[in-house]
Structure formats: structure tokens, C-alpha cells
């Protein structure tokens, strides 16, 4: 019997984000050997790496949701930034109207914003799963209208969220060396891992994404599974909105999480996931999200003109996608195989197992 290969194929899905991370690290080290240096300011760690972990928090959380939506619905949710803007607007209003801000206020406000996220997810999910609207078209509605809704909830331009607890959630808690958003993201990742372990979410989502008809004939309701992924996406958006607004200290309904869906979709793709649905890897998407943040910061560090930064990013991504494309991959595998056979200098070994077995039986 041949040895199972899946362990390695899982790794090969992570090949792209890992190799990009490696390249970026090398570039950064060339630019300055102090890249990994971490300084302690007021008892908390700062430096390039903590900054990346800090900056990517929202993106990581959103890319997890995006991975699930993509896998099940074979499409993308482009309203996640707007969804986060709406739910965080509700959070901010709740906090501002409650007078004395306690930890309890923040927690209730957060839970209310999660409910708002679920409602938004239910709206998108209903359109996609029950009315069979293409995910991108269905979520285009909130993409276009979402920020106006957030503004109406705000009631004025950029309400300020000035309280001690929000400040601590957005930056650091005194005495804790790691910035709070990093901790929240880590907690979120652990929770997701636990959900995947304790439920059949992965099997259901993959089955529906690969073959909804077969999934249905095995007792899975594809509509419900797709709907569920949009609910999860809604919660992810609410959490991302919560972190973003606490980081910023005010609710800017126009710019909060603006265009983040592009990076989230890119993170999913970078993570080796097919944007056409089916099998998925959360780890890949998470690594992809951190990679994107690192890329952004690398370009800043290389002092690329801010106006030109998007061009550089675009070029980098084109190169990446070509390198990772099936065409190039097949070519590389072939070349490697050839090289191997030349080195080995002998034809492939035959598996004479069946012949042996029958021979023995005969004796």
C-alpha cells in the first residue's frame, strides 16, 4: 500500500503564503537587520512583528468568515466592510448613550453589535441561499448602501469613542505586554478551531461547496449550510468592526474597514483556497491575511511613494498568482520529476504486490 500523502498536500497548500512570508522577511532583513527587533514601551511589546499582528487583526477575522462563505456558496461577500461599519455604529451608539461606561456596557454593546452582524448575515444569506442570487450581487446591495446606513445610525460625522476601556481594547491593557487586538484575534482563532473540532461544519461546508446535489441526497440541506456561513460571516464582520472602532477611537462611517473585502478575498486565495468553493483551509487564509499586512508594511518600510504603493502591491500580487498558478505548478512538478529520474538513472520501480499475493495463494 502506498503511504498517505495528505499531510504533505496540506502543507503544499500553505506553501504559497509561507514562501511569500519568507520572501518578505528576506527583503525586510536586507533593508535593515533590525527587522525582528522588539522594543518594550510602557510594558508592552512593539516592533515590526507586533505591528503586523496588530494591524492584521480585523483582516484575519474577516478572512476566516470569507473562507467559509467562499467554500460553501462558491462566491464572495463584498459587503463585509460595510457590515462591520454598521454593527460597530450600533456598538458606538449603545456605548455613547449609556452614560457611565463599564466593562459590562462594552460587553453588552459588543453582543448587540454581534446580533446586528447576524441580522446582516441573515439578509445576505437569505438572498444567496433561498433566492439563489449570486453572492457578489446579493452583497453588492449592502456594499453600496451599508455606509449610508452606518452614517444614519451615527447621526453625525465620526462620533468619538472616548473612554478608558475602549482605549484599552484598541491598544494595550496596562500590565499585559501584548496589544489587546492581537489577543482578541488569537482568542477568535482558538474559538474557530474549537468550533471546527466540535461540529461537522467542515464536512458540511465542503460537501455543499463541492457537490450540493450529492450533499442533499445525503441528508444535508445545502441552503441552510450556505445560510449558516453567512451568519458566521456576519459575526466575523461585527467582531472586526468592534476591534477597528476601538482601535480608531471614533466611528468614521466612510473609512472604517474600507475596501477590506478585497484584502480578505486575496487572503483566501493566497491561502491556497479555491474561490470556486469546495475544500478549504482556514490556516492558509489566516497566514494569507498576515502576509498581506506584512506586504503593506514592507512597502511602507521600503519608502515606496504612498501614491505608488498600490501599483507595487498589484505587481507583487500578479507575480504571486502566476507563480502559484496550476500551469506553473505543473511545469515545476514535471521538471522536478525529470530531474529526479535523471539522478536516479533507472525506470520507476514496479509494484509487484498483486502478483506476489496470487503466487503465494497458489502454493
Amino acid at each position, binding site marked *: 500500500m502506498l503511504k498517505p500523502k495528505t499531510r504533505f498536500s496540506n502543507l503544499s497548500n500553505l506553501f504559497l503564503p509561507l514562501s511569500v512570508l519568507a520572501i518578505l522577511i528576506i527583503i525586510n532583513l536586507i533593508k535593515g537587520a533590525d527587522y525582528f527587533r522588539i522594543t518594550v514601551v510602557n510594558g508592552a511589546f512593539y516592533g515590526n512583528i507586533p505591528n503586523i499582528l496588530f494591524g492584521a487583526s480585523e483582516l484575519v477575522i474577516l478572512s476566516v468568515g470569507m473562507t467559509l462563505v467562499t467554500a460553501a456558496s462558491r462566491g464572495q461577500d463584498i459587503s463585509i466592510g460595510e457590515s462591520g461599519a454598521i454593527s460597530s455604529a450600533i456598538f458606538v451608539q449603545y456605548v455613547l448613550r449609556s452614560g457611565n461606561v463599564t466593562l459590562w456596557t462594552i460587553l453588552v454593546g459588543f453582543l448587540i453589535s454581534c446580533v446586528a452582524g447576524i441580522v446582516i448575515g441573515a439578509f445576505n444569506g437569505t438572498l444567496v441561499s433561498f433566492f439563489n442570487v449570486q453572492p457578489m450581487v446579493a452583497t453588492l446591495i449592502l456594499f453600496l448602501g451599508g455606509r449610508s446606513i452606518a452614517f444614519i445610525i451615527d447621526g453625525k460625522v465620526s462620533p468619538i469613542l472616548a473612554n478608558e476601556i475602549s482605549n484599552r481594547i484598541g491598544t494595550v491593557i496596562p500590565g499585559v505586554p501584548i496589544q489587546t487586538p492581537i489577543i482578541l484575534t488569537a482568542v477568535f482563532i482558538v474559538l474557530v478551531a474549537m468550533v471546527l473540532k466540535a461540529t461537522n461544519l467542515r464536512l458540511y461546508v*465542503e460537501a455543499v461547496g463541492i457537490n450540493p446535489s450529492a450533499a442533499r441526497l445525503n441528508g444535508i440541506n445545502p441552503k441552510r449550510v450556505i445560510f449558516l456561513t453567512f451568519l458566521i460571516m456576519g459575526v466575523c464582520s461585527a467582531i472586526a468592526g468592534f476591534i477597528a472602532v476601538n482601535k480608531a477611537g471614533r466611528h468614521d462611517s466612510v473609512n472604517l474597514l474600507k475596501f477590506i473585502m478585497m484584502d480578505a478575498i486575496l487572503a483566501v486565495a493566497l491561502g491556497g483556497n479555491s474561490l470556486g468553493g469546495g475544500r478549504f483551509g482556514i490556516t492558509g487564509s489566516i497566514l494569507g491575511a498576515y502576509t498581506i499586512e506584512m506586504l503593506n508594511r514592507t512597502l511602507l518600510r521600503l519608502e515606496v511613494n504612498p501614491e505608488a504603493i498600490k501599483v507595487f502591491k498589484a505587481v507583487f500580487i500578479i507575480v504571486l498568482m502566476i507563480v502559484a498558478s496550476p500551469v506553473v505548478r505543473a511545469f515545476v512538478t514535471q521538471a522536478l520529476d525529470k530531474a529526479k529520474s535523471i539522478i536516479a538513472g533507472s525506470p*520507476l520501480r514496479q509494484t509487484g504486490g498483486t502478483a506476489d499475493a496470487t503466487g503465494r495463494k497458489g502454493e
Partner: protein
Amino acid sequence: MQSDIILKMEGICKSFPGVRALHNVDFTLRKGEIHALMGENGAGKSTLIKIITGVYQKDAGQIYLEGRPVSFRSPQEAQDMGIGTVFQEIALCPNLTVAENMFIGRGRDRFVHWKTMNGKAAEMLSSLGIPASPTQELASCSIAVQQMIAIARAVDMDCKILILDEPTSSLDEDEVQKLFALMRQLKARGVGIIFITHFIDQVYEISDRITVLRNGELIGEYEASSLPQIELISKMMGKALSDVSSMKKLEPGKADDSVPVFEATALSSAAGVRPFDFTIQKGEVNGFAGLLGSGRSESVRAIFAADKVTGGEVKVNGKRVKIKSPLDAMKQGIGYLPEDRKGDGIIDELSVRDNIILAMQVMKGFFRPLSRKQAEEFAEQFIQQLDIKVPSPNTPIKSLSGGNQQKVVLARWLLTQPMYLILDEPTRGIDVGTKVEIQKLVLKLAAEGMSLTFISSEIDEMLRVCSRMIVMKDREIVGELSGTNLTEQDVMQMIAQGGK
């Protein structure tokens, strides 16, 4: 004599990492002959075809086309040399017209001359006797006609070799005859046809010569007229004659007469089958017989609620139950192996393991996943029990051969321990050996007390397995046959006479 040979392959070898697909295989195709390429799944038929058509490159050996040594580096090259291929699945665009499907992507012209194209298409269609008009949308043609159009596209003008890979698997008897007429016509024009099929009767009906492969090796080339069927089967399976003939005699399952395991009254579904009554006893094997489109699949789909159930009453073990979705049916202990393995059965990118545990896992519930170890054990158990040939349970199911895929889907339902299992065309498109294995398994399960419904396009197969046959015609039950001495004739007669 020598000039008669259009294609000669000598000593062809081909290996894939870890697998020897072809070893020293010779193959000869003459002008104007229909040459059947036979072998079980994994025998190397597809690999040989892919080498002829330039999809794969041979590791060793020689190919001569009309006496000249050739080697195709791409399918396009093979096509340009006059080798046309039609694969099992029709690779045409249903929303384009017949003429467009025949010519688009073929011509060297940058622009399409609609008039000439339609004219040429009409000429070809009429000369080949294909009942379609050039401007008709392809989707409006029957599957058989679509198949013929695919052939017309492959044949084009100067085709010398035509390869037909399982062209008849989705056709009914009448359509097969039309296809054969077309093949005979091409043969008369001097086209050499390589014909691959699992239907042994069809091989004898139309082929002149038969080449048998087994485990990547050439077993031999024979004149069809001088090779008895039973011998062909034994050559394909690599088993002695006596084994094969003993397999053909199987005792049909027996039913007992207590409360039916499943009983439906006036059941109907949105797929348009007329309300029908149906019962099955414990340990009984029955079947729906009828031509393609007679409603046999729709009937079992209604039982499993695979299509929306629109009316009727259902009793399981004498108790009234509501079955509104496949999950309801599964909870009542009903399993359903669908007709369309690829579209409705397998989840192709998932591993063999996940495909095996799927139905059982769903029945257990969303919040109660099997542990990896348990899943692995279940998978291993059925891989052994059903002799599924797979490198590891983690292999994606799509890389398995058809027969092994079907065994995985079977394993999936056996794992749920159903009391009533519906098998819709479980043996379609799979090799003879696996076919017999599945038939034996069905009878064994019935002997253990499971009730089964078995549907097959091959009536003799149903006769071997079913103790009772429900005969359908035009989406209606026209009669029932039971008894041990049934013949194909009886069933045909009932279909022909029924539903007047």
C-alpha cells in the same frame, strides 16, 4: 493486406508514479473495421486511448499511422492527423446550435461564415443520417442525437480513426441502434473505429475484432465471431471459465410475508411520476424495470424524497410516517444510491474516508462529529470488506476508477445500516468483475434481512438479482412480474403490451 492497417502500435509502455499502466501492449486497427477494446476498469484502456489521442506520451514503443512512425505531442496534433475522439461525457455546448457545435473551434478562419457553415452542417447531417437541423439548439436534441453530433464533429471530413469511449452508456436500446447505424456507415467509408464499452452484447453486435487488456497487459486480439462471450468475460477477468459460468447462476432473493418494511400508497413527486403503490418485504429484492425515461428512477427518488413529494402515504414497518426530505428517509432507515454517480453520488474532491462516513455522519448530527480515528476505522473496514482499491483512505475519491467509486458510495450506505436500500443503476459504467461483486453483495445483504430495490438498464442483470420486477412504461407502472423462470422476453413483452 499491409496497406489495410491504419494504426499499428507496438510495445507501448506507460508508467505513472507508482503504477504501471501499460506494459508492452500491441494494438492494430485496420481500415473499415470496428475494433472493440475490452478490459475491466484499470486494465489500461483509457491510458491506451490517451496515448493514441496525444493526451499522454508513451514511455516506450512505436506508433505507426498508415505505415509511417508518428508520435503525438498534443491532442491537437492527433486531431490534425485524422484521429477523432468522442468521450463518454458529451463535451458540447448545449446552448449553441447544432452547426456551431460541429464547426466552432475547428476552422482556421477568423470569422464565421454562417451560411457556409450551416450548409456544410446540413450536408454532413443528411449524409450521416442524423435527424437534426443545423440551426436547432443542441439542448433540444435527444442525448443520442447529441452523441451522434459529437461523432459528426469528430469525424469531420478526413477522419481516418474514430475512437468512441463508452458512447452508449446513456442511451436506450433504440438510440443505441441509431448510433450503430451511424457507426456502420462510417465503417463502410473506411473509417477505423475503436469502440470501448461495458456492454458485452453490444460488442458482439457491432465489432469485427476484439482486443482484450488486463492489468496493463495485452491478453490477445480475437475475431469477434470466433470468441464466445463467456470466454471473453473470463479473459477480461483473468478467471477460469467455470468460475464465470457459476457466477451467472445466482439464487434470487426470497421474501417473507409479514408486514412490509416499506409501503407507499399513491405516492407522487414533482418529477412527474404518476401516483403509484409500492411495497417491499423484509429480505426482498425487487426492481423497477423499464426503458430509460420510463419513470423508474423518478419512482425511487420519490420513495427517498429526493424530488419533492407531492402526495401519497408512506408506512414503514406498518407505521405511518412522513418523509419530506432525504434526511427523513435516512432516519427511517432508507438508503439511496443514485443513478448519476458523478452528479449525485460522490463528493469528488473529498477523501474516500469522508465519502464513506458522510451519510452516517449526517445522521449522527451536526454537533456530533466522529473522531478522526473512528472515521478512519470505518473507512478501513469497508475498504477491506468491499475490496475497494485505493492507496489510502485519504485519497480523493475522484482519482478512483468508476467501479471503486461506486463501491465507496455503497459503503457509505452500508455504514448507515439501512433496513431498506435503493440501488439505482449501481453497475452502470463499471467493469464486469465489480458488477458481479455488487450483484453478489445485494443477494448477501438480502439474505441477512435487508430489503433492496435494484434498478438496472440490463434486464438480465435484474433477472439474476430481483425476485419481483415492477415494470414501468411512460412514467406509470404497467405490471408486475415474479417467479424464478422469468426471461428477458417476458419483461420486454410486458413493456411492449403495457399502458395501452
